[in-house]
C-alpha cells in the first residue's frame, strides 16, 4: 500500500489509529506488527513470508550476537555474518538475480546461456529499505550500540514498522531502541505528526505528481518533436518530482511516526540549495548516506590509514549506493559519477567553490545534480544520451516549437512554486507564523484540513499517481 492513496487514508489509517489508541500501551507494539504486515501485504500478500523470515532470522541472530558478544567474539561474528549474508542473499535474489545472469550471459559460454532469468519475478516492495533496516539491528548489537530486543513482537514491529517500510527513512535500530520500549503518546506529539504528515502528503500529491506529469508530457513531446527547451524543462521537472516524491514520503513517514509516538530523524534537508556536491549528499537521503557510512565506509576503515585505502572505500561505497538504487548499469554509473565528483571536490574543488560567489557554486551544483538525474532517469543509457543530445540541440526541431511553447509557458508558474518549495523559505515563514500567536495557529490547523481536502480531491480524480519505489 502507498500513503498517497484513498485506501490508505480512509481505510487503513483510520482503522489503524483507532485500534492503536484503543488497546493498552503494552499491546501497542504487537498491534503495530500486525497492522504493518497488513500494510505490507496489501499489494502482494505472497511476500509476507519474506518479512516473517526476516523477523525470525534477525531476532535469532541478534539474540546470539548479544549473548556471545562479551564472551566469545568468534561466535558473535559468525551470527552477525549469518544475518548479513542471509539478508543480502534475499535482496540479491529478488533484486539482482536477473541483472547478474543477463550480464553473465554476455560471456559466450554455453552453460551460462542455459541459466534461466527469472524476469517475471516481481520485486517485493520496499525490500531495499527493510533489509537494510533489519541488518542494522544485528550490526548495532555486534558493535555494541544497541541492546538485544527480547520481545519478538517489539522487534517485529521495528522490522515491519509501516510508516517507513517502503520508502524510508532507513531507521537504524539504535535510534529507536529506547522508543520501542517506551515512547510518549500525547496530543502535542500527535498534532505535530499531523502537520508533518499533511505537509508530506501535499508535497507528494500537489508537487511531485504534477511535476511528474509534466516530465512525462515533455518526454512524450521529445519522442516526436524534440525541442531544446522541452528537453531541459523535462529533466528539471523530473528533478523536482524525485525530490518532492522522496522527501514527501519521508515527511509522511516521520509524521505518521510521531502520531504513533516515534521520533525519526529527518531524511532530506533542502538538497537543492546546496553549494557543492559534497553538501548535496549531506542533505539528500540522509538516512541512506548515514547507513552506508556507518555500516560500510567506517567498517572498511573509513578515512584512516593509507590514502589509497580511503579512495578504495569511497569507491566501494558509491558503487554500492548506485547499485542499491536499482539493478541496472545506469544506477551504477550514477553512483560512480558522484564518486568521481566527490573525490574531485575533496582534493581541490571544494576550496575553490568556497571562494566563489554563492550563486556560481549553487548553479554548478544544480547542473551537476541535473545531469545526475539524467543518468538516473533513463535505464536505457542510449535513450539518456539521446535526451542529453536534445538538451544541446542535437536532433531537435528547434529551441521550441508551437506546441511545446504552450506547455513551456503554462508550466512556468508551477515551476516557480516548485523552486520556492524546495528552499527553506516556506518552513521559516511557517515557524514565524506559527509562533506569532493563537490566531495564526488556528489558521494553520484549518489550513492542514484544507490541504488534506485538496489532496483528497487529487486522489479521487487520480489519473496520475505513480509509485517511484518499485525498483527499491
Amino acid at each position, binding site marked *: 500500500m502507498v500513503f498517497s492513496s484513498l485506501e490508505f487514508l480512509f481505510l487503513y489509517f*483510520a482503522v489503524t489509529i483507532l485500534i492503536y489508541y484503543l488497546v493498552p500501551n503494552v499491546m501497542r507494539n504487537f498491534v503495530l506488527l500486525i497492522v504493518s504486515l497488513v500494510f505490507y501485504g496489501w499489494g502482494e*500478500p505472497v511476500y509476507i513470508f519474506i518479512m516473517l523470515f526476516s523477523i525470525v532470522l534477525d531476532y535469532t541472530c541478534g539474540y546470539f550476537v548479544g549473548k556471545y558478544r562479551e564472551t566469545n567474539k568468534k561466535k558473535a561474528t559468525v551470527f552477525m555474518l549469518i544475518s548479513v549474508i542471509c539478508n543480502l542473499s534475499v535482496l540479491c535474489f529478488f533484486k539482482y538475480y536477473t541483472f547478474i545472469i543477463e550480464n553473465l550471459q554476455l560471456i559466450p559460454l554455453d552453460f551460462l546461456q542455459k541459466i534461466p532469468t527469472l524476469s517475471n519475478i516481481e520485486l517485493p516492495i520496499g525490500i531495499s529499505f527493510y533489509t537494510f533496516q533489519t541488518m542494522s539491528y544485528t550490526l548495532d548489537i555486534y558493535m555494541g550500540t544497541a541492546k538485544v530486543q527480547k520481545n519478538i513482537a517489539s522487534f517485529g514491529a521495528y522490522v515491519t514498522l509501516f510508516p517507513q517500510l517502503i520508502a524510508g527513512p532507513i531507521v537504524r535500530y539504535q535510534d529507536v531502541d529506547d522508543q520501542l520500549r517506551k515512547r510518549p503518546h500525547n496530543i502535542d506529539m500527535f498534532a*505535530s505528526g499531523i502537520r508533518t504528515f499533511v505537509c508530506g502528503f501535499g508535497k507528494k500529491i500537489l508537487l511531485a505528481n504534477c511535476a511528474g506529469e509534466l516530465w512525462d508530457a515533455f518526454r512524450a513531446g521529445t519522442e516526436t518533436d524534440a525541442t531544446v527547451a522541452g528537453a531541459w524543462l523535462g529533466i528539471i521537472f523530473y528533478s523536482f518530482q524525485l525530490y518532492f516524491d522522496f522527501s514527501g514520503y519521508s515527511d509522511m513517514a516521520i509524521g505518521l511516526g510521531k502520531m504513533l509516538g516515534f521520533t525519526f530523524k529527518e531524511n532530506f534537508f533542502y538538497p537543492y540549495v546546496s553549494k557543492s556536491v559534497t553538501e548535496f549528499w549531506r542533505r539528500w537521503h540522509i538516512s541512506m548516506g548515514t547507513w552506508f557510512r556507518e555500516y560500510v565506509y567506517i567498517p572498511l576503515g573509513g578515512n584512516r590509514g593509507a590514502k589509497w585505502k580511503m579512495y578504495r572505500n569511497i569507491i566501494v561505497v558509491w558503487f554500492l549506493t548506485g547499485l542499491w538504487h536499482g539493478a541496472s548499469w545506469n544506477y551504477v554509473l550514477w553512483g560512480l559519477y558522484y564518486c568521481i565528483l566527490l573525490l574531485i571536490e575533496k582534493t581541490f574543488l571544494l576550496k575553490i567553490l568556497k571562494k566563489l560567489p554563492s550563486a556560481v557554486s549553487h548553479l554548478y551544483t544544480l547542473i551537476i545534480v541535473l545531469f545526475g538525474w539524467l543518468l538516473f532517469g533513463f535505464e536505457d543509457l542510449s535513450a539518456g544520451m539521446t535526451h542529453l543530445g536534445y538538451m544541446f540541440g542535437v536532433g531537435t526541431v528547434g529551441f521550441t516549437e508551437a506546441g511545446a511553447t504552450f506547455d513551456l509557458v503554462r508550466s512556468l508558474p508551477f515551476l516557480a512554486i516548485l523552486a520556492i518549495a524546495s528552499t527553506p523559505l516556506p518552513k521559516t515563514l511557517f515557524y514565524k507564523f506559527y509562533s506569532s500567536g493563537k490566531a495564526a495557529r488556528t489558521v494553520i490547523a484549518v489550513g492542514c*484540513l484544507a490541504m488534506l481536502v485538496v489532496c483528497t480531491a487529487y486522489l479521487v480524480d487520480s489519473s496520475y499517481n505513480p509509485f517511484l519505489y518499485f525498483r527499491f
Partner: protein
Amino acid sequence: MAKEKIKSADDVAKNSLQLQLSKSKESRFENILVTALVMGFIFFFAVAFWVVPDRDFSEEENTSLSSFPEFTVDGFLHGGFTADFGTYMADQFPCRNFFIGLKALSETVQLKGQNNNVIIGSDGYLIARSDYPDEKMLETNLKALGRFVPIAEENGIDCTVAFAGRKMDVCEDVIPELYGSYYSDRIFGILDEKCTEKEIDYINLRDTLCNTDEDYLYYKNDHHWTSLGAYYAYREVISALGETPYELSDFTVETATEEFFGTTWSSAGIKWVGGDTIEYFRWDGDENVTLKIESPRYEYKSATKTEENGKSYDVFDTFYLREMLETKDKYASFLGGNNNGYVEIRMNGEERETLVLVRDSFADSLAPFLARHYDLVLLDLRTSAPDTIAICEEHGAEKLLALYNMETLTTSNDLGKLNNKLSSHEK
C-alpha cells in the same frame, strides 16, 4: 533563538523544533483543533464511504463506475483484488463530483492552463488536447477504407468520403495562441499523405469549417459540432453528392436547451463554465419523418416498438428525441445518440433515393440536413459489423457516404469493420 535553530543544518534539532513549538502549553488548544479537524475529516469519510450506497453510473462523467471487486484467493494473493479495490474506492468515494471539481479548481488557480488534458480556452471553451494521436490506428482505418472503396464502386456504389476535425482542429480563435494549430496541422498532414498513398479522395471538413466566419461551430464543452457546424459540413457534403444545398434561411432555428454540459466538460472537471445551447434546424415537412432504430442500445421511453422480419425496432416520428434533453447526454437527442448500430430515416409518403451513411456520432446532428434530400440508412460500425455492401443492395442505394472525425479515426478501429464479408463482393 528559534531563528538560529532553523538555520542550523542539524537535522535532529530541526526535528525537535516543530515538536518543541507544538509542546508549548499555549498551543494545546490548536493541537486539539488540528487533530479534531483532520481526524474528523478522515473518520467521517471512512464511515461515509461504506454507508453511502454505491452508484453504477456517473451521469456527470458519462461512465460506468466500478463495483465492489470479486474476491478470489488467487486474485487476493497476487494483489489483483487490492488493486481493484483502489479503483472501486476512487469511483465510489462520497462527494466524488465535488472533489473532481475541487481538483480542477486547484489546477486552475496554479495557472496550469489545463486539467486532465483539457485546455481552458477563451470564451468559455474547453478543448480536449491530443498532441500525438495514434497514427497506427489512423493507418489501420484508412487501409480498410482504401480496400473497401474500389470494391464498393465495382458493385455500383458511388462512395464519398468526408473527414471532420476535432474542436482543437477547427476552433482556432478560442485556442491559446501558443498552442495554436501545430499538432492539428501535423496529424491532418499525415492524413493527407496516407490518403494520397491509398488513393482515397476525401472532403476535408476541417478546412470547410475553418473557412467560415461563424464562431459557434463546436460546443464549448462537448466534443461534437453544433448544428451550425453540422450545417456547414452539410453544404460541403451535399454539393459533393451533386445536390444544391439549402440556405441557412431555409431553416427555422429552434432552441432545444441552453443547459448542455458535454463530454469535454466531464473530463475537464471545470464546473464553473456555462452550459451550451443545442439548436434544432427545422425545415418544412421534417415532421413527416419516420426514424427507425434497430435494437437500440438505450431504453427510449417515447418509442413505439415494432418488429419486422424478426428484428425489433424503436420507431419515432421525429429526428429529435426530446426525452434525452432530460438526461445529461443531451446531444443524444439527435437521432437518440448512443452509437446505435443501425438507424433508418424515411419521409412518409415519398419515394426517394437512399443514401447509406457509414459514420460516427458527428453524423447524428448532420442527418436532419441530409434527410431533406435523401432517405438515410446510418451504420455505426462502433457497435455493429454489418455487410455494408449487402445493405446498400438491399435498399437499392447507389450512394454511400463515409463520415468520420479525426477523434474516431485515431482512437477506434471502426472502419476496419467495413471489410466484414467484403471478399464475397469482390469481382
